[in-house]
C-alpha cells in the first residue's frame, strides 16, 4: 500500500478525534460570532458535535482492527470503549454547564471550546502506546483542566483551585516526564510493548518471577516506572498525590468538578491500564518451566500498597467533610483506590497450579476488565451524584450536607435518585456499583497474594456507608418543616431532573441487566 492510501485509511480511523476537534473550533467560532451574548447557543452547538462523536465511536466498534494508526495510535476496542465513556461524560458535563446557575453571570464563551479540547486530549491519551503522544495527550487534558478550574472569575476559591491545580500538576508532569526519559534511556524505546519486553528481561528474568536481579540498569527502569507512577497518581488523585483534589474539587465550578472526577479520571485509568499492560503484563515463556510467566509481583505489591492507602485515606477523610463537593472529592479518591486495586490485580496476573503442583502466574485480563466495568459504573453513579449536587445548589443554594436538611421532601425526584447513586457508590445491589465492586473483588481474590486487599476493600465499603448515608439522613430524616433553604427561580429544575433520572435508571439497569456491559468489557484487550 502506498503512503497516500495508507494515510487515507488512517484518517478514516481517527474520525472521532477529528469531529471533536472541529467541534472545539466551531464552539470558539460560534462564541466569536455571537460576541459572548448567548452562550446557550454555543452550548447546543457543542452538544450536537459531541452527540455526533458518540455516534461515530459507536459505529467504529465493528471495524476496529487493533493495529496502529499513523504509527502512534491504536485503533482497538479498548480505546473505543474509553472514548465512548469520555464522550458520554463530556455530553453530560456540557449539559450540566448549560444549566449551571453559577455560569449565568460570567461570560463563559470560550468555556465550551476548552472543555472539548480537554476531551480531545483524553481521546489521544487512551488510544496510544507511544510515550510521546501519551504525554501530549495528558498535557492537552491537563492544561485545559487548569483553565477550566478557574472559570468562576469572580470567585476567589475558583482562582485558588486553578493555581493549586497548576502548581501540583506541573510538578507531577515533570516527574512523569523524567520517568519517561529514564525508561527511554534504559530500554531504548518509547513504545510500551517494547519497553515491556525490556523490563521483563531486566527485572523478572528469574523463573516463576521469584528471584529477580536488581542491577544498576534494573534500578534505573524501576525508578522510571515509579516516577511515571507519580504522574499517574496525580491524575487519579491517588494517595499520596491527592493533595490538590479536595481544594480543586470544592473551588472549581461544579460541572468542571464533575469533569475532573469522572471524565479526566476515566481517561487516566485508560492510560494506566495501557501503560502497565505494556510494561508489566507482557508474556514471557520461561524455557525450563515451559509455561508463561506473566505479571510483576513487585510492581503489583507497590500498586496494592498505594491502592490500600488511597481507599482508606479517602474514606476516612470523607467522613469529616461537611461540604458536599469536598465529600465527593474524598469519596472519589476512595474509588480511585478501589480501581487501583483492580490494576494491581491486573499487574499481578492470576495464580494457577501446574501439573507438578507448583504455583505460577497466568495472564489475567480480569483485573483490567473489572476496572473497565467499574469505570462504567462509576461514570453513571458519580456523574449522577454531581448532577444532584448541581441541582440542589441551583434550586436551593445549598452545598453543605447540613444545609440540605429536609430537602428530600421538597425535591423528591432528584433526592430519591441521589439515594440510588449513594447505594451504588457504597456498593449495594441492585446497582451497577455493586456489580463493579463484586467484579473487582473477584479479580483481586484470584490474584496471587492479594486476598488481604479484597478484605480491605469490603471493609472500606462499610466505612463509606457512614458518610454517604449522612447525606441521605440530612435530606430525608429531617422533616420538611426543618428545611432552611429557600427556593430560587431559574434553577433549570426540569432539565437537571431529566439528566438525574436518566443516570439513576442507568445505574439500576446495569445493576440488574448486566450481560451487555459485561460482554462489552470482556471483549477488550489491552
Amino acid at each position, binding site marked *: 500500500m502506498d503512503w497516500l492510501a495508507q494515510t487515507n485509511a488512517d484518517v478514516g480511523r481517527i474520525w472521532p478525534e477529528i469531529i471533536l476537534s472541529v467541534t472545539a473550533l466551531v464552539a470558539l467560532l460560534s462564541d466569536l460570532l455571537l460576541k459572548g451574548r448567548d452562550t446557550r447557543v454555543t452550548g447546543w452547538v457543542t452538544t450536537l458535535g459531541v452527540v455526533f462523536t458518540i455516534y461515530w465511536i459507536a459505529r467504529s466498534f465493528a471495524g476496529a482492527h487493533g493495529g496502529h494508526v499513523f504509527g502512534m495510535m491504536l485503533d482497538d476496542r479498548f480505546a473505543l470503549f474509553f472514548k465512548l465513556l469520555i464522550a458520554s461524560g463530556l455530553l453530560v458535563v456540557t449539559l450540566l454547564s448549560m444549566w449551571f446557575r453559577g455560569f449565568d453571570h460570567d461570560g463563559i464563551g470560550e468555556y465550551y471550546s476548552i472543555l472539548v479540547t480537554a476531551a480531545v486530549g483524553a481521546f489521544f491519551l487512551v488510544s496510544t502506546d507511544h510515550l510521546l503522544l501519551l504525554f501530549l495527550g495528558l498535557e492537552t487534558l491537563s492544561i485545559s483542566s487548569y483553565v477550566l478550574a478557574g472559570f468562576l472569575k469572580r470567585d476567589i476559591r475558583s482562582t485558588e483551585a486553578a493555581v493549586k491545580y497548576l502548581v501540583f500538576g506541573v510538578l507531577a508532569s515533570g516527574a512523569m516526564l523524567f520517568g519517561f526519559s529514564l525508561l527511554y534511556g534504559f530500554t531504548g524505546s518509547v513504545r510500551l510493548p517494547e519497553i515491556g519486553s525490556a523490563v521483563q528481561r531486566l527485572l523478572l528474568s528469574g523463573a516463576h518471577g521469584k528471584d529477580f536481579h536488581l542491577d544498576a540498569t534494573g534500578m534505573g527502569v524501576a525508578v522510571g516506572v515509579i516516577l511515571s507512577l507519580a504522574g499517574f497518581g496525580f491524575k487519579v488523585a491517588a494517595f499520596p498525590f491527592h493533595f490538590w483534589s479536595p481544594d480543586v474539587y470544592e473551588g472549581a465550578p461544579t460541572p468542571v468538578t464533575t469533569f475532573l472526577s469522572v471524565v479526566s479520571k476515566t481517561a487516566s485509568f485508560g492510560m494506566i491500564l495501557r501503560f502497565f499492560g505494556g510494561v508489566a503484563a507482557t508474556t514471557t515463556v520461561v524455557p525450563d518451566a515451559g509455561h508463561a510467566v506473566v505479571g510483576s509481583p513487585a510492581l503489583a505489591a507497590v500498586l496494592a500498597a498505594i491502592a490500600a492507602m488511597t481507599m482508606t485515606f479517602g474514606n476516612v477523610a470523607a467522613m469529616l467533610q461537611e461540604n458536599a463537593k469536598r465529600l465527593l472529592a474524598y469519596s472519589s479518591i476512595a474509588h480511585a483506590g478501589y480501581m487501583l486495586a483492580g490494576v494491581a490485580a491486573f499487574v499481578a496476573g492470576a495464580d494457577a497450579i501446574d501439573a507438578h503442583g507448583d504455583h505460577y502466574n497466568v495472564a489475567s485480563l480480569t483485573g483490567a476488565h473489572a476496572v473497565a466495568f467499574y469505570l462504567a459504573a462509576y461514570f453513571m453513579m458519580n456523574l449522577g451524584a454531581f448532577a444532584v449536587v448541581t441541582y440542589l445548589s441551583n434550586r436551593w443554594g445549598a452545598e453543605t450536607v447540613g444545609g440540605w436538611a429536609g430537602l428530600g421532601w421538597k425535591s423528591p425526584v432528584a433526592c430519591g435518585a441521589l439515594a440510588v447513586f449513594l447505594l451504588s457508590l457504597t456498593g449495594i445491589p441492585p446497582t451497577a456499583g455493586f456489580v463493579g465492586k463484586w467484579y473487582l473483588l473477584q479479580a483481586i481474590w484470584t490474584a496471587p497474594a492479594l486476598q488481604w486487599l479484597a478484605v480491605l476493600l469490603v471493609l472500606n465499603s462499610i466505612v463509606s*456507608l457512614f458518610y454517604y448515608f449522612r447525606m441521605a439522613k440530612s435530606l430525608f430524616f429531617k422533616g420538611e418543616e426543618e428545611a432552611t433553604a429557600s427556593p430560587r427561580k431559574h434553577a433549570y429544575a426540569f432539565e437537571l431532573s431529566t439528566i438525574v433520572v436518566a443516570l439513576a435508571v442507568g445505574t439500576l439497569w446495569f445493576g440488574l441487566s448486566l450481560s451487555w456491559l459485561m460482554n462489552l468489557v470482556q471483549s477488550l484487550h489491552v
Partner: protein
Amino acid sequence: MIETMDSTHLLSWITLSPLIGMVAILLTPRAKTDVIKTLAAAFTGIPLVLAAWMYFAKFQVGTAGYQLYEVFDWVKTFHIQYQVGVDGLSAPLVLLNCLLLFVAVFSSWNVEKGVKGYFVLLLLLEVGINGVFVSLDLFLFYVYWELMLLPMYFLIGIWGGPRREYAAIKFFLYTLAGSVLILIAMVAMYLSSSDDPAQRTFSLVKLAQIGQTPIGKPGCWASLPMLFGMTFQHWCFLFMFIGFAIKVPVFPFHTWLPDAHVEAPTAISVILAGILLKLGGYGLMRVNMTVFPDVMWQNGTTTVWATGLAVLGTINIVYGAFVAMAQTDFKKLVAYSSVAHMGFVLLGLAAMNPQGLSGANLTLFNHGTSSAMLFLLVGVIYDRAHHREIAKFGGLASHMPVYASLAFLGIFTSLGLPGLAGFWGEVLALLGAWERYPILTAISTIGLIVTAAFFLMTIRRVFFGPAQEKYRGFPDVTLREWTCLAPFGALCVIAGVFPAFLLNWMGPSIQSLVQIITPK
C-alpha cells in the same frame, strides 16, 4: 432432587408483584393518601393470596426437594442464574412474610408523614424478604438480602421515634458489616467451585452438592487455600455465620436490635421481629449447614463449631431473658425476649437431629406470630398512653378487658405455655439439644423460667393492681386493631393445638437436612 420447571412462575409472582404496586403508588399524586393506602393493601394482599395458594394447594407435602422451581440465565459469562424454588424450610416463612406485610399495611393506616414514600418502601421490603426465601442462586440471594437494607433504614430513620437517626444508622452499619462478609465468602465459594472458569457456579443446589462431596473425591471444592491454620470451608462458614448471626441476632452481635425496635414504628417492629430475624436462622440452614456440613459434624460426632453454636444459643436464651427482666420499657422488654427466643433456634440448629431442627423451624414461624402480636399490642397501648413505661401502668384489665385478654394470649404464647404455639418450638429444640448437650440444655432452662417470670410480672404490673384514674377513658381495641391482631391470635392457637400444618410441610426437608449433616 428438583422437579420440573414451574410454568406458572408462581414464586416470581409472589416475590415481584409488589413492584407493580410500587410503580402504581409512585404514579399516584401525593395528596391522595387513601388511594395510596388502598393500593398498598391490594399489592400486599395479592402476594398473600398467592402464597396461601402456594402453601396449601400447590406445595406437595411429603417431598423434600425444591418445588415450584424456576430458572433462567441472568449473566451467562459468570453463570449467574435467576433460580428460585421453595422447600419445607422456606415455604412457611414465605407465607408468614406475606401475612406480616399485609397486616403491617393496616397497622400503618394512621401514618401521616410522607405516606407515599412509606408504602413504597414497605412494598420494596416485601420484595427483598420474599426474594431471600425463594432464591436458590447465591448471587440472587445476596441481591435480595441487600435490597432489604435501604427500605428498613429509611423506615426506621424517617418514621421512627426520637433517637431514630442513631438507631437507623446502627442497624444499617451492623447489617452491612455482616453482608460484606457474606459477599467475601460468596466470591470465594464461586471461585472454588471449580478450577475451570467455565464450570463455576453460584447455584446453591450445585454448591451444596460440591460441599457435601468429601474432600479428595471428584466434584469437591477445587482449590482450598489454608489461611492461618483454618481450612477454606471453615473460613467461609465463619464469614457466612457472622453475616447471618448479626441478623438473628446472636450474642454479641445483638446490640442493634433493642435500639432498632424501640425507635421503629409499630408496623416496622412487627416486620423486624416477625420476619427479618428469621432470615438469619434460615440462612444458617440454607447456606452454612447445607453447603458446609462437615464443619459442624465430623467422624460421627459434633465438632467444636457445633458446640460453639450451642453455647451461643444458651447465652442468647439466658442473657436475653435476664436483660429482658431488667427492662422498664415494654417494647424493649419484648425486643430482648426475641433475643432469648432466637437462642432456642440456635440451640435447635446445633442439635442437628430431627427434633432439634423441627424445634428451630417451628420457633422461627411461631415467634413470627407471637412477637408480631406482642409488638402490635405494645403499639395499641402506646397510641393511647403515649408512653411505654411498665411501672406507670396498672389495672388496665378493668378498663380494657378485650385488650387484656388478647395480651394474655400473646404473652402466654411467647412464654411457651403448652397448648399454644410457642410451646412446641421450645420443647422440641430442648429435646433435640438434650441428646447432644445435656449441660447446656439444663442451663438453658434457666432462661425458660426467667422468661416466664418477667412476662408474668409484666402482666401483674400492667394489667392488674388498682385501676388508675388517668387510664379510665381509654377505648378498648378498635376494629382496625382487631383486624391486625386476629390473624396472629388465631395462628397462636392453631399452631399450638394443631402444629401438623407446619410440621408435615417441614418434615421431609428437615429429614433431608439431617441426612446431609449427620450421614449414617
